[in-house]
């Protein structure tokens, strides 16, 4: 199955689509690729002043600036991938209507572009970790599976949204609002401990993004981070976020596969 998905042709197509996407992304801008690094940096500077210096939200959390940055980088990856995937199939309508290529490839190449951006952003995070003298622990290795979980979650949603967008153009607006809600429902700007009620904390952590953001902070920045495991102890509810991820992946892939036959005529 995977062998067929990543045949020689598909790999060639993927690399060429991602390459083109990157070439065109910063076309006409003076700094070009540098914006991939500058953007998160500048956004971080703003948030640093607002949340660390003025509001002092992170009192008590070690390395709070980096902690904040990592959360933002991960969340931005999720936003970028899902938002760009939503319009990816429609945006590549010229190809889909005129050439037989695997439709999922369009979403996949978009996700790859987002992944490359994530990698660049993580470089910025690493630099700040070094500046802040964050202690490097062996939990660092956990970052890989956590990122994979986020990617799979985003991929499932991306397939679902991309297919839905072909038929219903309202989806992009709905998703924008949902993302905004998700941003505040996820402990990115504020530490989870700022929520007084433990019950609310528990509910919030069932969201895969909240669970993953806290987990990766635990793995990379500080073990003082509240995670779903420390909240629920040995409760079986710990698996809820993972079930949600798998559910979205299947739902997305299934719906996309079902609809992709008719993309050419519906776009």
């Amino acid at each position: 199955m995977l062998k067929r998905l990543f045949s020689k042709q598909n790999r060639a197509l993927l690399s060429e689509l991602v390459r083109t996407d990157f070439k065109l992304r910063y076309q006409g801008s003076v700094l070009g690729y540098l914006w991939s690094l500058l953007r998160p940096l500048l956004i971080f500077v703003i948030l640093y002043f607002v949340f660390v210096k003025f509001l002092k939200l992170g009192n008590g959390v070690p390395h709070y600036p980096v902690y904040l940055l990592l959360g933002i980088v991960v969340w931005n990856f999720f936003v970028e991938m899902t938002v760009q995937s939503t319009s990816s199939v429609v945006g590549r309508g010229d190809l889909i209507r005129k050439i037989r290529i695997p439709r999922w490839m369009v979403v996949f190449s978009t996700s790859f572009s987002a992944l490359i951006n994530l990698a660049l952003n993580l470089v910025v995070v690493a630099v700040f970790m070094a500046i802040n003298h964050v202690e490097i622990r062996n939990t660092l290795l956990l970052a890989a599976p956590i990122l994979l979980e986020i990617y799979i979650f985003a991929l499932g949603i991306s397939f679902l949204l991309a297919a839905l967008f072909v038929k219903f153009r309202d989806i992009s607006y709905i998703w924008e609002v949902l993302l905004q809600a998700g941003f505040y429902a996820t402990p990115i700007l504020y530490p989870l401990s700022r929520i007084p009620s433990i019950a609310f904390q528990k509910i919030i952590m069932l969201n895969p993004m909240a669970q993953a953001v806290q987990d990766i902070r635990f793995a990379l920045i500080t073990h003082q981070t509240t995670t779903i495991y420390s909240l629920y102890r040995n409760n079986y509810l710990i698996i809820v976020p993972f079930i949600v991820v798998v559910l979205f992946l299947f739902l997305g892939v299934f719906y996309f596969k079902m609809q992709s036959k008719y993309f050419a005529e519906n776009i």
Partner: protein
Amino acid sequence: MMSDDIAIHISGVSKDFVLDRDKENTIKGLIVNSWKRNKGHKVLNALSDVSFEVKKGEFFGIVGRNGSGKSTLLKLMAGIYSPTSGRITINGKLTPFIELGVGFNPELTGRENVYLNGALLGFNRKEMRAMYEDIVDFAELHKFMDQKLKNYSSGMQVRLAFSIAIKAQSDILVLDEVLAVGDAAFQQKCNSYFQSLKRKEQTIILVTHAMDNVNRYCDRAMLIGDGKVKLIGKPEDVANQYTLENLNAEKTSSKSKSKVVSNEDGSTRKLSEHVKRLDIVAQSPLLFTKPTQDEEFVFDVIYELTEDIPVDLGISVLYQNVSLIEHNTKKLKINHNKNTIYTLTYKVPLKNLNSGRFDVSAAIFQKKGFILIGFNTDSCSFIIDRGVKSGGGVIVSRGEWLINE
């Protein structure tokens, strides 16, 4: 199962498109439409029950008027659409695109576009590097490869696209009206390329409007109209039938036009206030397949004047806007009365005319000063088909060769 010498087998294929009155791609539209229950839907039957086979090594032509379902059929074969019903079996690899230069990006250079287009056709960088020189050679664009595509002329873009497309080594090549691209020299190049493909017995499907190409390349051809197969057979027959259908369609459209705006200015029919009516109506068939020596094309010229003025009528038979035969009524000495309908019949002997489409026109002149007061050139044509052996030329050759020793 289909036998090995069949490249494409299409059986009972139909394709419906659901036309939404206002494309229900908003949630509101969905809710409103499901409320009204299908009221917003209209089903367009683009193809119905199409069946045919293409053999391996065959040069197969598909012709049809705009909107006949050609493109839908191609997209179905290429796997871009899926059929509503019926089965499509492709034996081998078919080119996946139905248009040249798909995915070309104006912001990328010629070189980058070659690699991108190659990837869309399934080639990786290494393979593309190997054939890059060939592609650029064929397109004759060496100097321009590092220029952005948006700086190319449209002819250059098509040349590049065509050069990449023919490199897509597939078992079945699908070409949609690409023969009319580029300048004369490039067309010549494409020509010889097609001839070589034909010799190599590559399976090719050509969709075109140019009947010359159908006759020149195709082994077999198919005519589709209104989503149905109208005729499959020899290219000459299909080409003739297609031309005939076009004539009929032209005629009906020009007739309905003249009904509504009979006195309005038009480039092909103009009547002054002295002439009320000037029509040409064919009395014999419009298509002559292998006509005998004394067959004739017969038509009536029907006209009516609004004033008692002495006039003469003239007709001419044209081939591609060149007048071959002209004949006027000077010798007939007709006395014309106003508001009377006159009908004159004219017979064109066919024995000297070779294969082709001939147009008939009529004109009315005022005797005094020989002033043109009405003409009609758009409503009547006929076709002669003398078969393949007739050779070229508009006039049948009556000459002879003599060998002097």
